[in-house]
């Protein structure tokens, strides 16, 4: 059995959890049941949403101590659930929350963990998990050793959420009874806050228009803004734009900003330094607009327009408005 631990916040499912479900279904290949688990408070909505997938069961663990995330509570509950269910694999999306508690969970269980998996392969009849090494220069196929369960986190954007097989009817939702004794949780979580007002979560955006050095001046950001509006997309940027303060840092894509994998990524005046590419190469469809035909962005673009963005953008906006 494969257990997927989904992630939610305030009753809203993290989109990346669907990617973990897709990966689990691919790994199971119909020969193993897949079960989903989600931890928190008031989970009926999220559980109902998850039950649409073709899985054996959706399990909820609800507890006051799970209302706000703490690593102690999550590790405790996950370890208890794994002991009850004895899965062969535990799969998670490689979110910030997973990064926070999955290593502890693996250490607590004394089981192997492979993180940031981008593909599933086979090696001598055993499942192998492909993960990038050396800043993405190499991909290693990792075969996990030791007793089950093996813990696997999947890179955001590596598996497609829309590849999740839906069930013919909703999967049963059960509530797993797992207590959390006093003293288990050593952290006191304060209410989450956003550092900046109007913060955006680009990783959840379906369409992104990203702007780079080619935009030349702050006044021209408006052009990109209009283009984003016309696409119904979030506006993002490569590093020089945020360095200049033309857009806030939270809109920066790349190795020192966010990693995104939207359905549509329109790169406007971005040459495609590798630091930017690693943050967006998982996007489904990449459109690049750049004057320089030699720009590396064209190597990964699905559609490339070699032209002045100040000519192309207004034309696109006009066309999109029709």
């Amino acid at each position, binding site marked *: 059995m494969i257990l997927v631990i989904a992630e939610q916040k305030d009753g809203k499912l993290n989109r990346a959890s669907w990617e973990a479900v897709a990966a689990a279904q691919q790994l199971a290949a119909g020969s193993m049941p897949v079960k989903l688990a989600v931890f928190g408070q008031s989970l009926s909505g999220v559980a109902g949403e998850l039950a649409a997938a073709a899985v054996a069961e959706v399990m909820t663990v609800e507890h006051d101590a799970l209302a706000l995330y703490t690593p102690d509570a999550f590790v405790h509950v996950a370890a208890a659930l794994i002991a009850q269910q004895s899965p062969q694999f535990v799969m998670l999306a490689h979110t910030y929350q997973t990064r926070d508690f999955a290593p502890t969970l693996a250490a607590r269980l004394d089981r192997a963990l492979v993180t940031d998996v981008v593909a599933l392969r086979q090696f001598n009849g055993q499942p192998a998990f492909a993960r990038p090494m*050396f800043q993405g220069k190499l991909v290693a196929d990792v075969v996990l050793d030791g007793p089950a369960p093996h813990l696997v986190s999947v890179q955001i954007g590596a598996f497609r959420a829309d590849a999740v097989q839906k069930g013919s009817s909703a999967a049963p939702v059960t509530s797993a009874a797992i207590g959390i004794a006093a003293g288990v949780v050593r952290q006191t979580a304060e209410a989450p806050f956003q*550092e900046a007002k109007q913060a955006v979560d680009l990783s959840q955006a379906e369409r992104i228009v990203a702007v780079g050095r080619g935009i030349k*001046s*702050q006044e021209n950001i408006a052009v990109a803004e209009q283009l984003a509006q016309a696409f119904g997309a979030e506006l993002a940027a490569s590093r020089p734009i*945020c360095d200049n303060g033309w857009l806030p*840092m939270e809109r*920066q894509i790349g190795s020192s900003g966010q990693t995104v994998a939207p359905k549509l990524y329109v790169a406007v005046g971005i040459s495609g*330094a*590798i630091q930017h590419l690693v943050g967006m190469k998982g996007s489904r469809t990449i459109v690049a607009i750049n004057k320089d035909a030699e720009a590396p962005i064209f190597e990964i673009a699905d559609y490339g327009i070699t032209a002045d963005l100040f000519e192309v953008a207004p034309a696109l906006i006009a066309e999109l408005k029709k």
Partner: protein
Amino acid sequence: MQRETLEVDILIVGGGPAGLSAALRLAQLQKQKGGEPLSIAVIEKAREAGAHQLSGALLDPSTLRELMPDFEAKGAPLACEVQQDNIYYLTPKSKLRLPITPPPFQNHGNYIISLNQFAKWLAAQVEAEGVDLFWGFAGQSVLFDGHRVTGVRTGDRGVGRDGQPRGMFEPGADIQAKVTIFADGVRGHLTKELMRTLQLGEYSQPAQFGIGVKELWEIPKDRLAPGTVIHTLGYPLRQEEFGGSWLYAMPDGQVSIGFVVGLDYKDPLLDPYSAFQRFKMHPFIAGILEGGQVMKYGAKALPEGGWNTQPRLFMDGGLIVGDAANFVNSMRLKGIHLAMRSGMLAAEAAFDAVRADDTSSARLQRYKTLVDESAIRTELYPVRNVHQAFSGGLYAGGMFAGLAMLTNGRLTGDLEGHAGHTRMKTLDHYYGMAKRDIISGSNAVTPDRKITFDKLTSVHYSGTHHEEDQPVHLLVHTDVCHTVCGDEYGHPCVRFCPANVYEMVDNGQGGRKLQINASNCVHCKTCDIMDPYGVITWVAPEGGEGPQYDGM
């Protein structure tokens, strides 16, 4: 503000070969001599063992053999023994093999290692002895009580770019120690503070440095036999510049390749990174690399001034070891064994001082005596003038080096050395007024993205990472960048930085302004050393950040 404090007997700042050897030696002394156990802590700015360790590297195993005679049984990661030494003089298109390999370049009995892996292994040995290693803690400043060093304050976390605390602010801790051993590496920023505050360089020559730019390659397996060592002199450097290359072949087609440029060059337009790219384009080198791929990139300064540039090594409550004390033999291109030995000797002096409850400068001076009686002096003293002699150019330096070998260093009195950055010439001096137009372009190499790469791409392969929202950790103290530097030197920081940290960008008003891309920094310290005005200070960014030198 409430700071946590931690009290230990001996604090070691820096988890490289010097610091870790000191820690291991302390643990050994504890076992041998018994008694009340001393509390020992090691702090290191890298997130994990070895992450900031970069070297060629050839290891002379002499110190390791003494520190840990059973190092082979304990699984020391020595990639392979050196099998064959080659030294070439490169011309732009061709190569001349030196008929004999000069003794300093003979590496029989030495090992090719990855310093990253070696430090990881050494750290595991230290941890097994029960010493506390704190990874991800950068020393921010030295704690003083008058002239006595009382410990180190670690860096704050969660400070925003504007200097204001962010949501997750956590003040640094004060680690108080009876003895602090500074193993903060080449141009260590705490050692620099000590030198300034306590005038430790008063009787030393100015330190001299080089910058090493390195890549780790994977090439077809049958191309070079593991254990092959190649050094080159000459192209693309000119006679007036000190430096050369290394290329070490390890098993499985792994190759360590790098280039060292003395940070005392005169040409303000020289770019060590570009020199390395040009070197790789030489037919001899390109032939070796062709069809392979680069795995990793990094850069680090290295001390080259030798024996006469060591600062005063001891003070009330403090000792300086390793690269921080400039213990490198620049003729043999080796310093790991000297760093380890200085760490061991400092451990011995510190251990006795703490036990005797006297950690004064007078008592800790014993460390200097031990160094003077040790193999460090035997190796470094005879060649103390060699690097200084190279300031007269490659031929003069080479001749002097030969004579120094023959006479075992008795040739002359001490030659005077100069801080390298003071030798850089202005554009007018170097090129003359007439040529101003010719030199306005960049001397960068157009990368082919197979063998040569632009700096930004290379930075990616250093694995370096810094939180963007924190104060810039490269302090530029004056505004020369926007006033005279462009005319005088043409912004050399843009070139000597191997990580694209310094950039002159359009200021929107027809001029240019300095932009510091601090998050690209690979902690090499070159800017702190080579800036001709001496106005750049490298300070530690948030602990746990910086390059990730796996396998380097």
